[in-house]
């Protein structure tokens, strides 16, 4: 076959990415991701054994600040865009089995 990635792997990746893809999308992506990955294999033409990975193109260092409380977004503003909220909290369906109902 020579496919770089099969449908089963695409389904697994979709699960990792939390994307509930349709049958059509899974089929489409299997083909497209295979050809994109095949193209990316081009990178193996280069010998990089002695090359350091470069995560950032410029020298960046961790930035620290004093451990003091500064004003942040107030609760109402933070919740303004929430699809569901209750009593100053984001509201979600029940997460743990056997816990109190959501």
């Amino acid at each position, binding site marked *: 076959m020579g496919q770089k990635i099969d449908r089963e792997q695409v389904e697994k990746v979709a699960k990792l990415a939390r994307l509930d893809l349709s049958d059509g999308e899974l089929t489409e992506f299997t083909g497209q991701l295979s050809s994109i990955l095949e193209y990316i294999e081009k990178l193996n033409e280069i010998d990089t054994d002695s090359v350091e990975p470069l995560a950032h*193109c410029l020298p960046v260092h961790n930035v620290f600040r004093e451990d003091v409380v500064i004003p942040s*977004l107030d609760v109402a503003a933070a919740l303004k865009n929430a699809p569901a909220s209750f009593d100053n909290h984001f509201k979600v369906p029940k997460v743990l089995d056997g816990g109190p109902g959501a």
Partner: protein
Amino acid sequence: MHELSIIELKDKIAAGEVKSADAVKSVFERIEKHDPVIGAYISTFKEGALKAALDVDERIAAGETVGALAGVPIAVKDNMCVSTGKTTCASKILENFEAPYDGHVIEKLKEADAIIIGKLNMDEFAMGSSCENSALQQTKNPWDVSTVPGGSSGGAAAAVAARMCFGALGSDTGGSIRQPASFCGVVGLKPTYGRVSRYGLVAYGSSLDQIGPLTTTVSDAALMMNVIAGHDKRDSTSISTDVAPVKDYLDGIDQPLDGLKIAVVPELNAGASQQVKDAIEKGLDVYKGLGAEIVEVAMPNVEYAIATYYVIATAEASSNLARFDGVHYGHRTEKPKDYIEVYSKSRAEGFGTEVKRRIMLGTYALSSGYYDAYYLKALKVRNLIRQDFTNAFEKADCLMMPVSPTTAFKIGEKTDDPLEMYMADIYTIAVNLAGIPGISIPCGFDDGGLPIGLQILTEAFTEDRLLRIARMFEKQTEYNTKMPKL
């Protein structure tokens, strides 16, 4: 009034010759007349803009000191948070999102007394090269409405080209300012990574994203840089002014560079269409006429830039876009059967196809067993690509090349094959991997009357020299004064 540059308009406003309120009214007349066809704006702030303009006019009349962009109507790409109205990223998942704060560049625009008139269309989450990935609307190229405006800042380029704003802010992760600027015949500058704060810019590829101006002149781009460049502690990759001082980019902009050395990359240019190649050649002739010397350099690793970019950018995107969870903000699916479906169905319903494709690719590249083969490998090649640029800049002051292999293509022409669409990013994408600044300036038109852009690149934090080099060309030519017939 619409033919004025930002600098001309702000001078007239400051001198009391033109009222900011009239500039705003005039710009909205153009938007109301032309945007139903062009589709550059996702939202506009007519009432608020007029109010802000009247305030500027009053302060000028009272003799108060006003900011560097006082009274000038400016628009911004819809991935920058503005505390009024919506910030959609042209996505269904953020269709109703109202940002609770202003991004850093928005604060800067407001401090400079610019009038923010609206939010501009883009490819969803800045992923694309044609605005065809916008989930909300298709922006059209003002030079030929059957063609794309480029992307992802296509709305910004189209609005500036159609003079439906005096200048705009876009963002550039792999060419998203320069390529649409080229397609629409305007100036587009991607600053050095870290020069402009990304605070309040919805993240796509965090090690690549950078905000920059789209304008009708090089000097206008310099003025906008004066307003937005600088350190911001809320962006941890914002470069300290101790490391790289912010300059006055207008200072000396009209002064040509003596003994300018320009590097070109023949084997890279070979991939462009004949008409693009001819326009670039003619552009180089203009510089030769000004006494510049052309040197040929090789950049053997740049041909790997597309493969490298689509691993790194999608890996970063898959992580950045994990925040869209149907919980904190954005779309939530109607009837999830459990909490997992809150994530997986909300995201499936909210994201468009290209965004899903890139999240999938990035997730795969980072997943167990593939990380070394793809992500780590790409980071190593990124180092080699950056080295190619370092080597080139040892031989010359700047690099010049096309922005895109072709002029604007037809709407729908490339949507079937994502890889083909990615390939067209060859000239712009390596620049983001290296973090250096780049500009696209108008340098000609093809047989169909579509604009062609010349791309100029310089070393990190030398935007002042980059703008001066660009200005040398602009002074000798009239391409940037041409306007599309609407």
